[in-house]
């Protein structure tokens, strides 16, 4: 199950890439800006501001989830079976289904369309999510197919998986974009999972001489404490043979509205850090890290 494919991405690894977003993630980072990627099943997003009250959804819904009265559109999510019919007819994208099944071949066909761009730019395929490690069979098959075609591969991961998953995927992955989200003690409260499995996995990858870029979300007040900087520094020094560089990703509040669209509670709201704030944090990291730190 994927929730998106983005071709021509210049934001997910080197060169121009096709990024395949797999749906479902075991973590629940409080700052997650893609909440529609978290669940493993399809979900319906409802964006009332886009609704022009045309009534098309009312007639197609088999569960009578939509009603319009007095110029107001009511949506009863508890009745919804996420069949997607209403989203198909909505002319204004007020309803949208997140999640669709695609075969390896279908995805590969899309990926191969941009081969020329990978060749010129040093790009390739990136698996992102959600969490690609959570759909290991699918990820393995797709990476194999891509390698078979001579296409460079990346995995963007939170690192939470059984060791055997990494054993299977490491030989097929040319570059890991591995998250460092917070200091170890804060992992459970900020992401919903403990850090030990995650960083044991990171060390495993380093042992295998995998190439790794560490990606660090920057959420002021949450993960920019000195302990965080210290632990990141220790880790990068320890694994400096494998870690190519560190990318700092400032928190993006654009995802906050999506929680409401999914009928879920947003776990955190904050402003986007200013460029100056991000630059300061990068400067602080540069003081202690033995590798390049860039804004990602």
């Amino acid at each position, binding site marked *: 199950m994927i929730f998106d494919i*983005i*071709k*021509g*991405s*210049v*934001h*997910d690894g*080197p*060169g*121009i890439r096709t990024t395949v977003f797999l749906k479902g993630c075991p973590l629940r980072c409080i700052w997650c800006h893609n909440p529609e990627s978290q669940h493993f099943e399809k979900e319906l997003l409802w964006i009332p501001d886009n609704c*022009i009250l*045309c009534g*098309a959804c009312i007639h197609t819904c088999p569960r009578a989830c939509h009603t319009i009265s007095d110029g107001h559109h009511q949506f009863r999510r508890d009745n919804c079976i996420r069949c997607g019919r209403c989203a198909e*007819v*909505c*002319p*204004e994208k007020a309803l949208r289904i997140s999640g669709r099944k695609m075969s390896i071949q279908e995805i590969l066909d899309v990926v191969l*369309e*941009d081969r*020329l*761009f990978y060749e*010129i*730019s*040093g*790009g390739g395929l990136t698996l992102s999510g959600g969490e690609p490690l959570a759909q290991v069979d699918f990820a393995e098959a797709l990476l194999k197919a891509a390698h078979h075609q001579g296409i460079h591969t990346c995995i963007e991961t939170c690192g939470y998986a059984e060791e055997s998953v990494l054993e299977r995927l490491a030989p097929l992955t040319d570059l890991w974009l591995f998250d460092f989200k917070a200091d170890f003690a804060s992992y459970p409260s900020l992401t919903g999972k403990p850090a030990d499995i995650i960083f044991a996995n990171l060390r495993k990858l380093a042992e295998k001489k995998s190439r790794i870029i560490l990606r660090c979300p920057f959420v002021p007040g949450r993960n920019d404490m000195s302990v965080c900087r210290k632990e990141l520094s220790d880790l990068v020094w320890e694994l400096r043979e494998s870690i190519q560089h560190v*990318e700092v*990703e*400032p928190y*993006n*509040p*654009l995802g906050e509205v999506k929680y409401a669209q999914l009928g879920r509670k947003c776990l955190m709201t904050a402003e*986007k850090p200013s*460029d100056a704030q991000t630059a300061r944090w990068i400067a602080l990291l540069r003081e202690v890290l033995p590798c390049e730190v*860039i*804004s*990602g």
Partner: protein
Amino acid sequence: MYEIIAENFTPVLFRNDPFFWETGLKTAEYNGRRELSAGGFLMLNREHLYREKHPESFLEYIMADRHALHLAYGPFCDYDHHCFPFSNLLKLGLSGILARLREGRRKNTCPDRDDFYTAAEKGLNSVQKIILKFAQAAEQRKNATEDPADRTHWERIEQTALKLSQDPPGTFFEGLASLRFFYEIGNIMDGIGMSVLGSPDRQLIRLYRADLQAGRLTREEAYDLICRFMLQVDCKLDSSRPLDKQYNAGEQGDTLILGGLDEAGNPVDNELTEMFLRAHEELQLIYPKIQFRTSRRTPAELFHLVARPYLAGRNVIGLLNDEVLIPALLKNGKTPHDASGYVAGGCWEVIAEGTEHSEGANCYFSLGRAMDLTIHHDPELLKELGLDFKQPDSASSFQEFLDCCMDNVKTALKKMLETIAECGSVWPEVNPCPFFSACLDTCAETGLDYTQGGAKYSPHSVPLTGFAIWIDSLESVRKICFENREASLQEMLTAVRNNWKGFEQLRKKVLSLPHWGGGNPAVRELAGEILRELHQFITSFRNERGGPFQCGLYSYSDIVFWAKQTRATPDGRKDGDFLAQGITPSRMHHDSITSVLKDAASLPLEDFPANSVLNLNLSRNGLTEDALVALLRCWTEIKASGMLQLNCISREELEDADRNPGSHEGLIVRLYGYSARYVTLDADRRREFKERNLF
């Protein structure tokens, strides 16, 4: 006129500016009008000649501008966006140009050419007189001071002016002084606007290296001169004021061309290219507008230098693609030497430097409005425009619908091209340019002003805009009405004529169809066929000078203002929605960069030597320098357009800039061939910018 200017102008010199150029005639040059672009005073004073000679054609042509069908800038001939023929001057000097003119006169046997020779010679003599007045003024300033540094400064201006009054420049400093002075003098003498400040890396490298070798100049001194050369161009404008309070709404030509290939296909970039780029970045300049020419041989370091300002929120550099433009110029009759020396005028008007004028911004033609006028039955308006359009209602096949649309667009183009040829032939009387012409190649031999076709090349560009509307509308009718038969043509026409009100489902279907930029082979094929047909049609006409019409794909801020008059179209666009620039896909679809680039690269762009422009706005969030360089390489190598108008921005930053303008003074965005501070833009321009697709 030349003699009056030379007699009466005042040389103005500045203590901290090593160059001399200010004649105090700026207001006269602009005829006292703030909103006029470079040049124009003769045109404004003598435009009545057009009206008197061809009153009916004049009126209909102007009406087409007023009704957003095509531009009427000039109104029949472009009076600015020119490039002074620097390379000829750098080779021959004024005395050489004069000698060439006299030689031409000696050999010329046509008595009716005498006026041209006489006027051109007076023009050249007057320019020599103007330079000597600068020399004199500098000498006076020198004699009035005891300060050794001051004396050196004035002495250098004096000596340089004396030299340039006769000879070509012999040092790097003199080379820069020539570019600066002749750019300005070109604007003043003939009333037409110069937009290009030169291609200094290719034109001055020999002088720079010779200076270094002879110990006359250090790298640091050269860098300082480059900074001062550019700084005084930028500080002409107070770009922090709201746009409507700035001179010419903040837009100046002042274009500097860097990089690119030579006639043998070798890259010309050198240490000067790098120094100009670095200085522009270090000084945080907007002007001069840098147009950087890329090719598959552009070194990585230069791509990185070009990429860096974008990532800092300074979207100030234009990108020209030699892989597209040089073959297009060659195919359209330019020699390898002339094609490889091309420059882009004000925004993107491609000119063969030294051998032709600019005619790139006079008549943008809106395919979007042509589609609107085909669909919306509006006999009154058509009558005002003098156009007889066919009605598409009775088409019983897609071919018939297509033929109707193409016939209509050709009717409108024919009218425009014939009017330009008819009325434009008055241009030599409105605005003859003997001085400028004498500096161009071949006018001295032909004895004809460029306005009469005396230059080596005499093209007139026809830039098309609203391309995505045209293609997507045709595809929409093809699929919905004739292939899938989801609605009849009549229903479709009714929906569009009602601005889609009550037809939301049909519009949704239209928006989900294959479209331009979406990577669909059938759409690509249609787009290619249409461009080939339009190219063939347009180039079958001859222009006002007897030269060819050449095609382009771009427009200016018309994508904002014409949009207001352009009604709904079958591509799903509603009344008033903005147009897309050049070959940029519609704003209603969000495709990948790669499918946009591949679609663009599939077009027969070699038939569009006037330029073909693509807009891309990239999200700055998470964008690294390496990734941006990779993208620029791809755009160049797959030949996706002649020009890329790139922005790297973040939506949040734009929203915050709307709320807190004071904190975003440094955010500069690329608009329509030029860059401006975002916070100075008016509401329309901001909305247009924000509504561009973000990749």
